[in-house]
C-alpha cells in the first residue's frame, strides 16, 4: 500500500537517512520517536510534500516519488488541525470536494451528511476560531475523510486534546479504521495510543528507522535498548548470561540474579527489559508464588498516579513496580517497608548483544 524504498531527504540541517518501510493495506500504522526525529517529515513525504533526494516512494504499488500531493489521494490531518480560518466549517469540510470538481450545492449536500456522522452538524456555519479543540479536531478529520481517501495520515492528532475528548476521538478513529477500510498512518509520542490503536509500528530516531514490526512486539519485546527506553519500558538493566539450560537463562546483574527466557549463550552481555506492571510485590512471610525471580528489597519511594502507584524498590538494583493504590494501602506499603518481589521469567525480555 505504502512503501518507502531507501528514502533519504534533507530539510535544512535535518536528514532522513535511507528509510525503508512497508505499510500494508488496512494497517493502523504508528510512527513513533522523540521530537525532531523526522516522524512528520515521513508523513509529509508520503503525502508528497517533500521530494526525496534518493530512494523511491510507492503508493498502491505505483511509484509516486515525483507525483504532486494533489494527485496522491492521501489525506493529512495535522496536530494543529490546520483548519482554514477564513472558511466556515461547512466550507472547510467541503474544500476537498470542491477541488475534485463537485458543484457547491452538491458539496454542501455531501458535507451535511458527513457533519452529522461526526456529530458536528450544529457547527456547520461556525468559523474555526469559535470552536473548541475537540470540535476543531473533528472538523479536521471530517474534512480529511470527505474526499474518501484510502490513506489517512495523522500527525499527533490527540496531543492537544483533554483526556475525555481523547477517548471520544480514539473511538472515532477506531470506527473509521474499521468501517471505512482506511489505511491509517499516525505519528505519535504516546505509547498508550499505540497500545490502543496500532497494528504495526516503526520507531524513528535521528532520522533513521531503528525498528519496525508488529505493534505488540515493538512495544513489549523491542530489539534495542534505545527503542526499549523510547517505548517506555521502565526497567532496563544490563547484565551477562551466567547459565543457560534449554533457553532458560540466568542473568547476573552484578549481585542480583534474574531468570529469563532467551537462547543467548553463557557469557553474552544482555539487557533485561521488565515492564513495571509485570512485577509482583509481597510482604515477607506470605506464601511464595510461582514466579522464578524472587528477591527482597526495601521500598524507597511510592508515587501515586491516578488509580495506580509507582513503587521504587531497592533490591540490589532499583526496580519500579506499578500497583493499584488499593494494593499499596492494603499492604501498608511505604518508603522503608521491606518487601519481596516476584518476577516471572517470561516477563523478562532479553535484548542480545
Amino acid at each position, binding site marked *: 500500500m505504502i512503501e518507502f524504498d531507501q528514502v533519504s531527504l534533507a530539510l535544512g540541517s535535518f536528514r532522513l537517512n535511507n528509510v525503508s518501510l512497508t505499510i500494508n493495506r488496512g494497517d493502523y500504522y504508528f510512527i513513533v520517536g522523540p521530537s525532531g526525529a523526522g516522524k512528520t517529515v515521513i508523513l509529509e513525504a508520503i*503525502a*508528497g*510534500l517533500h521530494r526525496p533526494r534518493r530512494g523511491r516512494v510507492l503508493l498502491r504499488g505505483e511509484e509516486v516519488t515525483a507525483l504532486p500531493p*494533489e494527485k496522491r489521494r492521501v489525506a493529512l490531518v495535522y496536530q494543529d488541525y*490546520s483548519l482554514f480560518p477564513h472558511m466556515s466549517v461547512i466550507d472547510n469540510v467541503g474544500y476537498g470536494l470542491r477541488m475534485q470538481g463537485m458543484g457547491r450545492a452538491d458539496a454542501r449536500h455531501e458535507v451535511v451528511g458527513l457533519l452529522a456522522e461526526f456529530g458536528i452538524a450544529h457547527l456547520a456555519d461556525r468559523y474555526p476560531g469559535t470552536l473548541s479543540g475537540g470540535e476543531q479536531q473533528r472538523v479536521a478529520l471530517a474534512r480529511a475523510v470527505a474526499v474518501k481517501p484510502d490513506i489517512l*495520515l495523522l500527525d499527533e492528532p490527540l496531543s492537544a486534546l483533554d483526556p475525555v475528548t481523547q477517548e471520544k476521538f480514539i473511538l472515532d478513529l477506531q470506527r473509521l479504521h474499521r468501517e471505512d477500510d482506511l489505511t491509517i498512518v499516525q505519528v505519535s509520542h504516546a505509547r498508550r495510543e499505540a497500545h490502543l490503536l496500532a497494528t504495526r509500528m516503526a520507531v524513528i530516531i535521528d532520522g533513521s528507522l531503528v525498528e519496525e514490526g508488529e505493534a505488540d512486539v515493538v512495544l513489549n519485546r523491542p530489539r534495542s535498548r534505545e527503542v526499549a527506553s523510547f517505548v517506555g519500558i521502565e526497567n532496563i538493566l544490563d547484565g551477562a548470561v551466567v547459565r543457560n539450560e534449554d533457553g532458560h537463562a540466568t542473568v547476573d546483574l552484578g549481585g542480583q540474579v534474574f531468570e529469563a527466557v532467551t537462547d543467548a549463550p553463557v557469557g553474552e552481555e544482555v539487557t533485561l527489559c521488565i515492564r513495571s506492571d509485570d512485577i509482583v510485590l509481597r510482604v515477607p512471610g506470605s506464601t511464595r508464588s510461582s514466579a522464578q525471580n524472587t528477591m527482597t528489597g526495601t521500598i524507597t519511594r511510592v508515587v501515586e498516579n491516578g488509580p495506580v502507584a509507582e513503587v521504587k524498590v531497592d533490591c540490589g538494583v532499583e526496580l519500579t513496580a506499578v500497583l493499584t493504590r488499593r494494593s499499596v494501602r492494603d499492604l501498608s506499603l511505604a518508603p522503608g517497608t521491606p518487601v519481596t518481589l516476584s518476577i516471572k521469567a517470561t516477563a523478562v525480555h532479553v535484548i542480545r548483544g
Partner: protein
Amino acid sequence: MKTETLSGDKGGLWRAERPGWHTDRCILWFCIMGAVIVGITVLALANIAITELADPAHLFEVAASSEVIGSILLTFCAGANAVLLLVIFGTPLAYVLARSRPSRFKEVVESVVDIPLILPHTVAGLLVYLLFMRRGWLGAPLAEIGLAFEDAYPGTVVAMLFVASPFFINSMREGFEKVPVHLENVARTLGAGTFTTFRTVTLPLSLRHMFNGAILAWGRAIGEFAAVIMIAYYPFIISTLIYYSFTTDGIHTSRSIAFVVIVVSFAVFYLLRRMTRYLGRYDDRV
C-alpha cells in the same frame, strides 16, 4: 470580576480590572513620549489649518481651480496605477521570498527590493530616468512602440512604482509568512494545485497585509517628488504643482494647495481604513 488584558479588544489600558481611571505609570510615560510625535504633527496641521481657514475665499478659489483638481486626480490615479502594477508583479515576488529557504541569493534579491528605501530620492529618480529616458535601455524600445516616459504620465507612474515597491513587497511578504505552511499542505493533499492553493487559501489570508501594503505604497507614491520630477516634471502631480506654485506664486497659494491636499488625503485614507477595518481579520488561535 471581568478582566481585560492589554491586548484585549475592549478596554485595553484604560479599562483594566480595577474600576476608575487607573493605569500603569510606565505606560503613562510611554503615552507622554508618544504624544510628542503626535503633537508635532497636530501642531503642524493646526498651524496651516488656522492660517488657511482665516481666508476661506482664497482657499475655496484654490481648491476649485481645475489645475489643482486635475493635479490631485492625476496624482491619485498615477499612484493607484503604480500600486496596481505592484499588486500584479510584486505579489508573486513577495510569495516566493516568503516561502523560499534562506540563501545568499535570496538575501541579494531582498537587498535589491529594499534599494529604493535607502537611496536618496534624487538618485532613485536618476536611476528611473536613465532606464526609461528616450535613449534608455527600456525607454528606447518602448518609445518605438509609442510608450514615452519623459514628461509623460507613464514616467510618473514608473517613478512612483520604483520608490513605492519596497513598501508593498515587504508588507505582502510578511503577510505570506504569517500564513502557516500547514494550511497550504492540507489544501494540496485535498486536491488543490499550487496556484489554486495560493488563490483559495494563502491570498485570502494575506488580504489585510496586501491592503496595508497597498495603502503604504500608494501613500508613498502620491507623496513622491524628487524621483518624479527627474523623469516627468510635466504633467504636474501635486508635489510638483506645490513646488512650482511656491517658486512662482509664493507661499500663499502653495500653502492653500497643500492644505487642500492634506484634507483630501486624510479623508481618502481615513475612509479606506474604515471601509476595510474588518478585511482579512481571522482568529490567530487557528
